[in-house]
């Protein structure tokens, strides 16, 4: 008799569980390895996210993929098969996200990437049907740079970038847009992230006498070309990409990076945004939360991409809950549809309007130009 009661109790508990299943979010990000400076603030952000959405409990399972696509694939396989996650968030870098997208599509799990390149969600196909991304595309940012150059009377421009996917990606986007806007590219150089000197490349750029130089590099290694240009007496404009928008870049660069222009997501200069900017409130909310936990000035653009992924979920989950219970195939499908139907969702980096063709959904409100002045980002009016 007692055994029967126990059985009944277990069944009842199971039933209750089915009725109010928790939402499980599986995260794979690069908290170690070359992309660690991007992955660490993302990881910190997951600790600040709401633990309930639409009255349902949310579990976050955060795994580290060490900036290694193989490890990212392994993580996402584990998340989908063992943890039966409802949605995948990650990874930090483009190669990792592309590797994960295969598993996401196979298991029909919606995925929100935090990587920069447009190829994560373009061109739309059966695999990318399941994939969304929160950061601005490189093309988005490159357009802002080229626009700024043309309005500042730049006619000739030189490029120096990483000899890897990041540098090549920027070179392709930038060259395409610059050509369309009649900017003349007079030099294109490459260097390694770990290089101790870029004197050779810099001299070649100086010999070409460009009006402006674009440094296609991310993080603190982007300091070196600008420092060397300054040392060798270059007087023109210097542009950086949004890949440098963290405190470490300012700390390492110091005086050597003063005056550089770069496009960033509005969250980086949330305080300086005009009050009528629609993104200001959402951006400030994130900045306050993050800095309360990690100290003033600690916030970076990268963690905000994780925050925005959560904002997308907060809008999509209530819609999806009407069609299925978390933990089921129906719910995952409904969640995907709801993410694709995202309209006018204000996040810390901009305003999302997703369509079946566009799984990133930002417009020009998701970028501002800033200049480095007195060791901080200054919004360009």
């Amino acid at each position, binding site marked *: 008799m007692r055994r029967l009661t126990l059985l009944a109790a277990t069944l009842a508990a199971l039933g209750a569980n089915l009725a109010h299943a928790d939402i499980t979010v599986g995260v794979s990000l690069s908290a170690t390895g070359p992309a660690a400076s991007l992955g660490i603030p993302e990881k910190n952000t997951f600790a600040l996210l709401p633990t309930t959405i639409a009255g349902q409990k949310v579990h976050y399972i955060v795994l580290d993929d060490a900036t290694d696509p193989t490890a990212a694939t392994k993580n996402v396989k584990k998340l989908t098969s063992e943890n039966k996650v409802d949605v995948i968030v990650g990874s930090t870098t483009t190669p990792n996200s592309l590797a994960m997208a295969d598993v996401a599509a196979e298991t029909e799990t919606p995925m929100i990437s935090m990587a920069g390149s447009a190829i994560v969600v373009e061109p739309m196909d059966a695999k990318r049907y399941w994939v969304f991304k929160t950061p601005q595309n490189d093309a988005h940012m490159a357009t802002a740079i080229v626009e700024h150059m043309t309005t500042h009377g730049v006619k000739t421009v030189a490029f120096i970038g990483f000899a890897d996917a990041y540098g090549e990606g920027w070179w392709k986007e930038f060259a395409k847009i610059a050509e369309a806007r009649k900017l003349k590219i007079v030099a294109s150089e490459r260097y390694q992230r770990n290089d101790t000197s870029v004197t050779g490349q810099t001299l070649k750029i100086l010999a070409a006498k460009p009006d402006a130089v674009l440094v296609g590099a991310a993080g603190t290694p982007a300091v070196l070309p600008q420092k060397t240009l300054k040392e060798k007496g270059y007087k023109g404009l210097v542009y950086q990409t949004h890949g440098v928008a963290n405190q470490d870049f300012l700390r390492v660069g*110091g005086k050597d990076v003063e005056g550089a222009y770069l496009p960033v997501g509005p969250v980086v200069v949330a305080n300086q945004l005009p009050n009528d900017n629609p993104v200001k409130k959402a951006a400030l909310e994130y900045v306050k939360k993050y800095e309360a936990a990690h100290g003033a000035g600690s916030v970076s653009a990268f963690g905000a991409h994780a925050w925005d992924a959560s904002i997308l979920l907060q809008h999509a989950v209530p819609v999806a809950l009407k069609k299925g219970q978390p933990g089921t195939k129906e719910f995952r499908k409904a969640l995907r549809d709801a993410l694709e139907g995202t309209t006018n969702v204000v996040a810390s980096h901009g305003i999302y309007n997703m369509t079946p063709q566009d799984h990133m959904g930002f417009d020009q409100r998701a970028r501002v130009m800033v200049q480095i002045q007195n060791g901080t980002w200054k919004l360009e009016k």
Partner: protein
Amino acid sequence: MDLQILLLLGQDGLTNGAIYALLALALVLVFTVTRVIFIPQGEFVTYGALTLAAIQAGKTPATIWLAIALGVVVFLVDAIIALRARAYRRLPRLAALTLGVPLAVAGLLHGLDVATLSLPLQILLTLAVVAPLGPLLYRLAFQPLASAPVLVLLIVSVAIHMALMGLGLVFFGAEGFRTPAFSEGSMDVGPATLQYQSLWIVGVSLVLIVALYQFFDRTLTGKALRATAMNRTGARLMGISTTLAGKLSFLVAALMGAFSGVLVSPVTTLYYDSGFLIGLKGFVGAIIGGLVSYPVAALGAILVGLLESFSSFYASSYKEVIVFTLIIPVLLWRSLTTRHVEEEE
């Protein structure tokens, strides 16, 4: 290409080449004395630079904890051996060397207001933190394998490289650091501008190389090291401790590595994983010297620096390819010109 560009590229190449030369010399020293191909040499460069950066930021560099931890382990291992042999008199000296030195440095770091010290003192402290790592690592990883084949030693040295690099990420984080120059500014020499820091690097490297030469040529310890390098068994028969020689060569290597890091960190940003590539370029120099000849290794390293500088001007995308491809003709030339001697195992 005009004269000015030629001079600037040459200056850049010489500056980097001087650093590579220091590393190449350390690699040759370690290899000849202990037969270890010392891959982690580059880690000492990053540890030196990042430790100095931490000291200048007023933080306690985490490398000191590594030195203390290694010291404790080495002390325990050696103390057990000494106790088993009932050689109690060895203990005080052992404790002073393995525990005393790192703890004393830690005490200094804790007691002094390190961020306000003058640069030379900060550099001395940095060296005192990083240099003990050399002999401690030798005692733990290589001394028990002293007679193992070169391949085994190489595998162990790759393992240590991986471990030190991983620890570097834990100690210093993923972002890079730069330290202020020894003296800011530059001067004009004819059509070219000379950075003072480049002068420092080349000058200090020269001084170190001369000092090393004097050490090997004039001092008894230096001669003992040379004897060990030429013939281990013979040296042992002459009463030279090969263990001590091994530790000493690692100490010198660690010192030179850390000092290279201190020299180069004002010029460029160093990351926890920068050391490997820098060390590898020193290694190419050492290979040119056949891992035995100091002068040829130093010249080879300077050649690597110059080649790197000029190839970054002409074909920046292929720079690393060009530098590392250099090793193929060198190896070909060496294998054609030198008589092959079977390694005695």
